[in-house]
């Protein structure tokens, strides 16, 4: 599979939020303001790329000692530790970037999108370069979905909707319509 196809497919066709349902919590929680979306998206792309780069050799190692079944335990531990480490390093050496991303970093540990993308990479047997490209595409897809949806949400906040639908239900119905538009991409690559 060529790298271009992997990238486009990860961004649009198999959008991680709207067609694979991973990372719904930050998608619904953070998408209220456009600025937050950019910050969260940047943090997710960064963590996904680094997590992929780290977990790929770890999986190769596990394969060598016939312990592939430990991948979930190993990956989540590595991701949790890595996020903590990045937080400490950013705080010490790049305070301005820490202020921009800091709030979102702890939330990412329990974001199933990050663990999901690393597991998908090893399950589909991608090479190192393909894994990196897939993670990049998935991260961009997450950011795109967040940005589009924050625009939709801004309009909902200012409209008159029935009492029982206020808040989360209206957001979910809007997400449904956004997801419907993304189904237009399905079947692009057979």
């Amino acid at each position: 599979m060529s790298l271009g196809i992997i990238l486009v497919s990860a961004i649009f066709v198999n959008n991680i939020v709207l067609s694979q349902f991973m990372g719904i919590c930050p998608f619904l929680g953070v998408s209220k303001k456009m600025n937050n979306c950019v910050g969260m998206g940047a943090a997710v792309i960064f963590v996904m790329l680094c997590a992929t780069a780290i977990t790929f050799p770890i999986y190769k190692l596990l394969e060598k000692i016939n312990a592939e079944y430990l991948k979930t335990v190993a990956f989540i531990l590595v991701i949790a530790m890595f996020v903590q480490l990045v937080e400490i390093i950013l705080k010490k050496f790049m305070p301005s970037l820490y202020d921009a991303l800091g709030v979102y970093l702890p939330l990412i540990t329990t974001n199933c999108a990050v663990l999901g993308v690393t597991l998908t990479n090893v399950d589909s047997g991608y090479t190192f370069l393909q894994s990196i490209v897939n993670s990049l595409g998935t991260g961009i897809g997450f950011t795109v979905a967040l940005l589009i949806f924050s625009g939709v949400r801004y309009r909902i906040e200012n409209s008159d909707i029935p009492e029982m639908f206020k808040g989360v239900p209206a957001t979910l119905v809007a997400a449904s319509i956004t997801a419907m538009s993304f189904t237009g991409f399905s079947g692009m690559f057979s």
Partner: protein
Amino acid sequence: MSNLKEITKGIIKENPSLVMLLGMCPTLAVTTQAANGLGMGAATTFVLICSNIVISLLKNIIPKAVRLPCFIVVIAGFVTLIEFLMKAYWQPMYKTLGIFLSLITVNCIILGRAEAFASKNKVLPSICDGLGMGLGFTLSLFLMGSIREILGAGTFFEKPIPFLSENPMTIFITPAGGFFVLGIIIAVVNKIANRKPPEKISCEGCPSASLCGGDKTKCEQTKQSPEKEAK
């Protein structure tokens, strides 16, 4: 008596996915069929009860500062266990659930219960809490799955329903239908419970919620205050 209360609170009053809005990803992703909902619910309940037992036993040994990584490793261990069990005894369900079985590890319900309940209570109440939360989660997944399967495919547990199976509304088994059905169910729950719709989403389950008290702005303040103290 109080143990019974721990079980029932998870099913209705604090239903994890419909009232507390935790664990939305599996709620939406695997519920294209009623049976999938039950399978996912059973797997999650198993992990939830086991991790609650272990964490409530180890609560005095685990140091406070590194408790979250410890909890996650315990949970991931049990997830690996259930993966093996399902692969051996329930092959079709193992294939359908796929990656979402591994992703139980990062389900906020389990980490949320470990942090909010099991790490503060004795073993027996923790088991009851896990059982109740698990049942509540399973029930809501089953509800979602039934609605989507009946309307979207015209079948129920893969048995065709007359009329509906000839005219299925396929949109309900697509991702868009998942969001839509969940939105409607939560709106109905809001209406029945006659309560104010929740403003915050899943802050209760967020592992850093203990730092911010479930408030986004406070979350930012607490993040900055240790720095000020250091200065």
